[in-house]
């Protein structure tokens, strides 16, 4: 390595002079001159037992280019990143950085070549300052003294240059998630990143923060950096990237410039079939009798404060009641009360006129309430059990899974095979551990289990959060079909589009109360938006 990034920066990873090694790169790389390839992957293959995670994946990105890797959950994006950053070694294929072949044995090797990654889950020491985090574990020089002021100045300069305002002296715990992400990016830039990989960076950001990030990304590209942007969100890929490489089932399908494509095309390439981003048409039905009824229900939240206040609602057979509201206004508590996971302080819940015992999940299940929880991994499934076992998580008590007094593994596996087929669950087999599946497939397992008990009520909390386009589409279809079959469906969602697309009626929550219930046909967005903000 070089003697000092701060002073001369003559090494391969820190090519520039000045506090921040930026000037050495062509400032107008995005201009008309022929671009040099910053990174090129040729037919990279990575196998895991039973699965080819990356199958001859190729892509190339020029200096100063923002290149998006787009794919569904499980398409191989994460594996490809881990290959690029030296965490995995490819079984086959070649990687070129700056035109030279490279072979990484560790993330450090990749960093020496200028490849840095900003993970979805940030890796910062909370009790240390921004400047300390930036230099932590990085010792390119032989000098023993750490000069906080120099680092702080350098960080502040870069922060200004790339429009990523952050106070270098602030401690990480004082920062918002968006600011922390900026620290991660600055850290990579400080260490001489030429190629920056951002792994689904907008997941933790508010829409405003995301906008800000996009403009920083453009600034970095303008300064000759290559940004690899991983995402499964089409609008942001279209707005931020120059080129998109689409991954599907471990293969790189194609690379297209964003200028000549649109969301429908990309969605089609990503999912491998024609998808329409238009609404799933919902046939308006004559509502059936009231099945689920809440009368004056109140309950406390996790911190002991009242989170639900005298909620009165009814859901009819065959309809979807959408629960809209800004997150944290009692929607989660509402779903948990109905599922018996949270005791009430007053009021009652009835299904078909029969009272549901308070705070008893088993009684709720027995009376016919199915529940798809918001916290899929933590509550909805037992991650280290197999798919087959997770599919009988609620039905193992029944006669169908037994042989005499014992549980029948054969019936369990047979049941799993049927469900895998019926719900199109992509998995090596029924005995695969469920935590190895992608988010969409886990959600399918959950829905398969909840619906296989022939419920009278289905409560689905944020059922499509974090899912890719294909899986979202699928889950929405299942919800609509469930309602058509006469189940009373209650769907909690923060996504207004989803609410409008699926619901027959919309109940808006604010501060633990139902602000109003409107029929979707008569509702408009402004009205719902106002109600969500507390106006009745």
């Amino acid at each position, binding site marked *: 390595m070089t003697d000092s990034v701060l002073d001369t920066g003559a090494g391969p990873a820190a090519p520039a002079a000045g506090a921040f090694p930026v000037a050495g790169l062509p400032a107008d790389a995005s201009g008309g001159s022929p671009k040099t390839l910053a990174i090129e992957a040729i037919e990279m293959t990575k*196998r*895991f*037992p*039973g*699965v*080819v*995670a990356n*199958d001859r994946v190729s892509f190339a990105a020029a200096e100063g280019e923002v290149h998006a890797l787009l794919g569904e*959950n*499980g*398409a*191989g994006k*994460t*594996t490809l990143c881990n290959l690029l950053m030296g965490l995995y*070694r490819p*079984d*086959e294929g070649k990687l070129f950085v700056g035109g030279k072949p490279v072979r990484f*044995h*560790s993330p*450090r*090797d990749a960093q020496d070549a200028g490849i840095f990654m900003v993970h979805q889950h940030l890796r910062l020491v909370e009790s240390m300052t921004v400047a300390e985090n930036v230099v932590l574990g990085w010792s390119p020089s032989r000098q023993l003294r750490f000069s906080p002021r120099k680092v702080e100045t350098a960080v502040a300069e870069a922060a200004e240059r790339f429009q990523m305002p952050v106070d270098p002296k602030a401690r990480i715990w004082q920062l918002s998630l968006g600011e922390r992400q900026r620290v991660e990016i600055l850290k990579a830039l400080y260490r001489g990143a030429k190629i920056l990989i951002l792994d689904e960076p907008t997941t933790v950001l508010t829409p405003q923060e995301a906008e800000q990030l996009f403009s920083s990304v453009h600034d970095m590209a303008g300064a000759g950096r290559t940004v690899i942007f991983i995402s499964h969100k089409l609008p942001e890929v279209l707005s931020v990237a120059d080129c998109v490489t689409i991954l599907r*089932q*471990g*293969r790189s399908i194609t690379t297209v410039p964003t200028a000549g494509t649109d969301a429908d095309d990309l969605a089609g390439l990503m999912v491998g079939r024609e998808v329409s981003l238009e609404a799933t048409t919902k046939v308006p039905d004559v509502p059936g009798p009231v099945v689920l009824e809440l009368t004056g229900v109140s309950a406390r939240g996790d911190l002991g404060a009242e989170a639900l206040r005298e909620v009165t609602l009814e859901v009819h057979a065959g309809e979807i009641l959408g629960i809209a509201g800004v997150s944290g206004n009692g929607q989660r508590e509402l779903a948990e009360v109905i*599922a018996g*996971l949270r005791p009430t302080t007053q009021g009652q819940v009835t299904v078909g006129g029969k009272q549901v015992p308070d705070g008893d*999940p*088993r009684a*709720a*299940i*027995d009376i016919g309430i199915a*529940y798809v*929880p918001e*916290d899929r991994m*933590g*509550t*909805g*499934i*037992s*991650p*280290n*059990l197999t798919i087959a*076992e997770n599919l009988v*998580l*609620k039905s*193992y*008590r029944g006669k169908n899974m*037994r042989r005499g007094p*014992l*549980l029948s*593994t054969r019936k369990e596996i047979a049941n799993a095979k049927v469900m895998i087929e019926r719900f199109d669950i*992509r*998995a*090596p087999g029924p005995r*695969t551990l469920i935590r*190895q*599946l*992608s988010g*969409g*497939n886990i959600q399918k397992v959950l829905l398969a289990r909840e619906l296989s008990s022939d419920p009278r009520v289905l409560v689905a909390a944020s059922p499509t959060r974090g899912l890719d386009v294909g899986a979202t589409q699928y889950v929405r279809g299942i919800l609509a079909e469930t309602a058509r079959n006469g189940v009373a469906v209650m769907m909690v969602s923060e996504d207004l589009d989803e609410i409008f697309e699926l619901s027959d009626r919309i109940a808006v929550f604010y501060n633990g109360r139902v602000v109003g219930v409107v029929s979707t046909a008569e509702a408009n967005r402004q009205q719902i938006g106002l109600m969500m903000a507390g106006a009745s």
Partner: protein
Amino acid sequence: MTGPFKIERRLDTPKWLKVAVPIASIFLAAIIVGILLLATGHNPFTTYHQMYSASVTADGALSSTFVYATPMLFTGLCAAFAFRMRTWNIGGEGQLYMGAVGASATGLVLGDWPRPLLIIAMILGGAFAGMLWAEIPALLRAYLRTNEILTSLMLNYVAGFFMYYLIYDSDSYWRDLSTPGASVFPTGKSLVPSASWPGITIGSFTIPMGFVLGVGLAVALLGLIRSTRYGFEMRVMGDSPQAANYSGIRTKRKILSVMAISGGIAGIAGSSQIGDFGHVLDPRGLEQAQYGYTGIVVAALALYNPLAVVLVSLLIGGLTNAGFALEGPSFPTGLVGTMEGIILFTVLGGEILARYRIGLHHRAPTTVGQAPASVTATGAAS
């Protein structure tokens, strides 16, 4: 970080490896201990031969190995069963004491019952006492969310003091006050001869009844864990208590019942100490043996598998037996403990290493070959 080897996590471990690794680990431990023996001026081969003879071939050696193995079998099952559900019952030691107290009380009170009934009563008496003792940390855990590791551990000391109190510091029912010397050298009351459990004797070799009982229990526990609803609920609870609650499992009752079974097994260890071997409540002997704590080691080495507990208890029992036989002026007393420690270290270390695949860097993966298309089309990797 860089080196000639590459280490990757295995997604699934082949079956043969699960058996081969522990065996290889024990050999590795033998090699390490061999070096230790050489360093202390012993010939490893003669020492190993001596150990083998002292625990297996010598006159009465095998019988005595079983004597040591029997309590470890029970306490090993006690720990293995509770640990399966991530309920960390460290209280096997105290539950064993209380089991011994309960079994000796039953044996003393019901001394005039017919022998089979008396023996069954002793087993149940010990199991019941152990259960009750285990329910204290269980109730605290289920309803007040205290950490059962701490409470069950501390209750071991309480149980120990209680046992001493019964024999040394009080005129309790358990203490022998009939002879004049009894106040100077306090002992417990001896049980009637019909309260001693029959062993299975083949020539000069005797298997204690407790061991046979323990093997039966191990088989039953394995069945319970593997193929009943009860075992399924344990697996869900151990993996994710939230998911268990969500799926309608009564989680509090589950903790109480698993701790009851676990404590009951440790209680039977106490029964067996009274019925099979001691025939008298002997606080000092029980405390020095530390079978409850050894049971945790046995359970860990057996990877919480009840049937493996049977084998491991014999192995550790044999080692303990050999250790007592070897101890002498020229042989360091701590060496047996060291060997047990090294075995634990290598077996658990081997278990972790078995989850990884180690290979050379620059070798082309020709053995993997072209994967069939059907394999590639899975959504499992991400």
